[in-house]
């Protein structure tokens, strides 16, 4: 077994990053001009990395499968971005953000990376404001904050329910500025289909132009994968339709280890599934748990309407079970609690697989607050309602509108129905402190890597991590590698390795087109999704996982003999693109089950039914499982496990409690 070297700098935790930055090798400006960097993906991590590296003088190429870099799925993040600014004077600090993140991740993240993340968090807000990101502000003109799950301070910055959109448009504008200056070359509607390695180092990619179907070879001294998460392995998730694992999976097959694939985040507040036709699920931001109260009826199988159920007949189960954090417990805990109530027969709505998220109390509270502010001494109930609804509309208006649009119900009048859905994947390509994978020159940033969130990510931390990696980490850490590459001239893409890589990609596409089976790609994707959701979702068991692995292997065979792909190979062909992605998901799904089966404990989003406390909380096994599981691809259905031991030198590892 190889020993994974995370290359964590020596010294005190709080000084590691500062010392690293002052001692890491530099590349002088003249040399930067001849070094080429490929960035795949244009979300928060990709756009911020590409812009920042181009500003430094590197030659950058950016690839995205969408028609514009502005469409990457970071755009859909709603609630906010954390930063340890302590603007609210409520006791926040770098250490507290670090501590909350490690604890929230159920003690399965790497200390040094998380501390660095907390250290740079403040600079992200500064940078975004300087770019013109219109964060929410108070009347005095200063920035506004709100709370998110798993914390007791207000450190979340936001722009209504569209924070991801505003941050991405900020990063996109910085990127487009570099495009305009000729420092970045943009390849839209291009999908990366392989990494090219030469003498063990990443030297480029093979990309397919989706419009013409042409395969292209691109050289880079380094390749950055900023390609997001793999939640769509479940078919239904809050991810965009195009979100996929293909780039990361190709890298995995070229030698990059895949870490903690089973760590999946199931988000507690999503709009429930309405029928078989459903193509994706929609998130209702965690910020709604600031003011909304979650409940189910106290009586089983209660068929009354929500508004007919009296206060004392309601079970506010999160407030009951977790008085200290109440409705703001971390996502994994809130999701499991919802599942527990629904499984026990207390669910609501037609499917009974939903719980209520209720704004009635918040509307009255805000209405009374407004009356007080306006010196109204005896406001009528109608006035309180109207003023309260106006406040809620300002804070959450776009989310309420979205709910109404999808369900046809008005959440200002009746409680929303919500249920957990797949949202984010904490697992991803294994990276060292420098964000480099086990393939030299190949990096993974943002959700595509595994490093900062352990077994459960806290709300508003994905945006923070994506931008931290792109704006403030990779511009420094990439120097450690590129400083030794200054003598490597740009390589011809006519070399044997490039030609062979392109040939392999072409053959795979031709094989897919030539199957000419009977079933569309979606058929296989839905079946995989159901296996994953039932057996590798919110609750996992040895028996279920073992059976799933066999089922997935059988499904892989069926896919490769019976998938039907229409259209042409050399034209825009969305079904061919989807087929390639689903083929990769079928392999990843198998590895996720293998990983979940290997981890004989429960931690964060990974809940093994065999390992729980008496009151149903996740039961960790720190003695045997305080490691990162990094899997090496060793042939079809064969993966070798490598372990990175997690050392907690600055935090006392403990049973997580939000009670």
């Amino acid at each position, binding site marked *: 077994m190889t020993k994974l070297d995370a290359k964590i700098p020596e010294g005190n935790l709080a000084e590691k990053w500062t010392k690293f930055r002052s001692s890491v090798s530099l590349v002088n400006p003249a040399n930067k001009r001849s070094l080429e960097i490929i960035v795949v993906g244009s979300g928060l991590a990709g756009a911020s990395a590409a812009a920042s590296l181009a500003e430094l003088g590197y030659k950058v190429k950016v690839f995205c499968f*969408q028609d514009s870099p502005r469409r990457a799925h970071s755009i859909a993040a709603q609630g906010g971005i954390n930063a340890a600014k302590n603007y609210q004077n409520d006791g926040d600090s770098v250490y507290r953000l670090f501590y909350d993140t490690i604890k929230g991740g159920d003690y399965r993240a790497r200390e040094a990376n998380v501390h660095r993340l907390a250290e740079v968090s403040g600079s992200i807000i500064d940078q975004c404001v300087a770019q013109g990101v219109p964060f929410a502000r108070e009347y005095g003109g*200063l*920035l506004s904050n709100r709370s998110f799950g798993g914390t007791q301070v207000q450190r979340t910055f936001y722009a209504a329910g569209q924070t991801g959109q505003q941050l991405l448009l900020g990063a996109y504008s910085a990127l487009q500025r570099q495009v305009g200056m000729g420092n970045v070359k943009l390849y839209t509607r291009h999908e990366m289909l392989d990494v090219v390695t030469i003498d063990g180092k990443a030297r480029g990619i093979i990309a397919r132009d989706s419009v013409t179907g042409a395969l292209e070879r691109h050289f880079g001294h380094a390749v950055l994968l900023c390609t997001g998460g793999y939640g769509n392995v479940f078919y239904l998730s809050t991810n965009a339709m195009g979100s996929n694992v293909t780039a990361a999976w190709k890298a995995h097959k070229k030698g990059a280890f895949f870490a903690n694939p089973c760590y999946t985040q199931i988000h507690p507040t999503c709009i429930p599934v309405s029928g078989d036709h459903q193509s994706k699920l929609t998130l209702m931001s965690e910020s709604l748990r600031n003011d909304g109260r979650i409940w189910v009826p106290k009586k089983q199988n209660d068929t009354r309407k929500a508004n007919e159920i009296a206060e004392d007949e309601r079970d506010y189960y999160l407030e009951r079970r977790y008085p200290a954090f109440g409705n703001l417990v971390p996502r994994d805990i809130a999701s499991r609690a919802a599942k527990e109530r629904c499984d026990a027969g207390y669910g609501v709505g037609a499917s009974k697989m939903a719980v209520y998220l209720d704004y009635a109390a918040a509307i009255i509270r805000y209405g009374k607050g407004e009356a007080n502010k306006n010196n109204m001494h005896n406001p009528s109930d109608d006035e309180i309602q109207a003023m309260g609804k106006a406040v809620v509309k300002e804070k959450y208006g776009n989310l309420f509108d979205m709910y109404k649009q999808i369900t046809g119900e008005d959440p200002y009048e009746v409680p929303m129905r919500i249920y957990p859905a797949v949202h984010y994947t904490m697992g991803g390509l294994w990276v060292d402190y420098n964000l480099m994978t086990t393939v030299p020159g190949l990096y993974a940033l943002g959700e595509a890597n595994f490093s900062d969130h352990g077994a459960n990510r806290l709300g508003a931390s994905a945006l923070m991590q994506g931008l931290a990696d792109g704006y*403030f980490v990779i511009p420094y850490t990439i120097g450690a590698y590129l400083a030794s590459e200054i003598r490597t001239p740009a390589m011809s893409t006519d070399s044997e390795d490039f030609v062979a890589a392109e040939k392999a990609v072409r053959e795979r596409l031709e094989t897919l087109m030539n199957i000419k089976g009977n079933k*569309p790609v979606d058929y296989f994707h839905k079946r995989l999704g159901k296996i994953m959701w039932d057996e590798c979702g919110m609750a996992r068991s040895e028996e279920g996982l073992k059976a799933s692995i066999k089922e997935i292997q059988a499904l892989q065979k069926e896919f490769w003999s019976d998938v039907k792909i229409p259209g042409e190979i050399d034209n825009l062909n969305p079904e061919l693109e989807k087929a390639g992605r689903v083929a990769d998901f079928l392999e990843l799904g198998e590895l996720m089950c293998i990983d979940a089966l290997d981890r004989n404990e429960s931690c964060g989003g990974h809940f093994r039914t065999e390992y729980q406390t008496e009151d149903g909380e996740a039961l960790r096994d720190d003695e045997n499982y305080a490691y990162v599981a990094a899997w090496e691809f060793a042939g079809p259905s064969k993966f070798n496990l490598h372990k990175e031991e997690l050392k907690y030198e600055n935090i006392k590892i403990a049973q997580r409690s939000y009670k």
Partner: protein
Amino acid sequence: MEGHLNLTLKIWRQKNANTAGKFETYQVSGISTDMSFLEMIDVLNNRLIQEGDDPVAFDHDCREGICGMCSMYINGRPHGPNRGVTTCQLHMRSFQDGETITVEPWRASAFPVIKDLVVNRSSFDRIIAAGGFISVNTGNAQDANNLPIAKDDADEAFAAAACIGCGACVAACKNASAMLFTSAKISQLALLPQGKAEASKRAQAMVAQMDEEGFGACSNTGACEAECPKGISLENIARMNREYFSATFSSK
């Protein structure tokens, strides 16, 4: 509440940019009113695949109204009959049983058709690259709260910044003008103190790029505002004009 619809669809089919397109007619039945419009197209496409035909190509990604990728012109209106929603958020409960629905791509010379309902909107990216940014390299920023911004200005900037770049404004405009899109970015940055330093240069460069891309002029019809899924206001165009003219008059 759930019901089922039988519909006739007239959809624009075009193999690629170099071939002429035409409408094809399809029948779909048993469509749940809880489906989104794109899920209805998914149903049609899976049937076309089963029957050995090429499915309808269309742009879509987030399916929650924020990425701006979906772009269908439905019954003569960008994103269909409802105000303030994108095609992906349009649900079948907005249609009647037995209805005929016509679906076309965005029509504008600056948005050439790639295939079926898919168009090329990279002209929008080039307009942003011309000046839709504040020139601040990573690492140059001061503490965020050193620059208080009046809440009203911040809110107004946010309202302009909410543009999703879908291009419905262009598709709705009889002149295929990109004024609403361009003005939303110019407005957002002009309203903020950070954006003032290069406001003149920005307005001139973005307007010049807009013209170069072949977008038409604005004749104040207001169709763009009416059809914008994010409610971007016409006031932005007025503000852009002010910025542009003051930049032109004061330019050396």
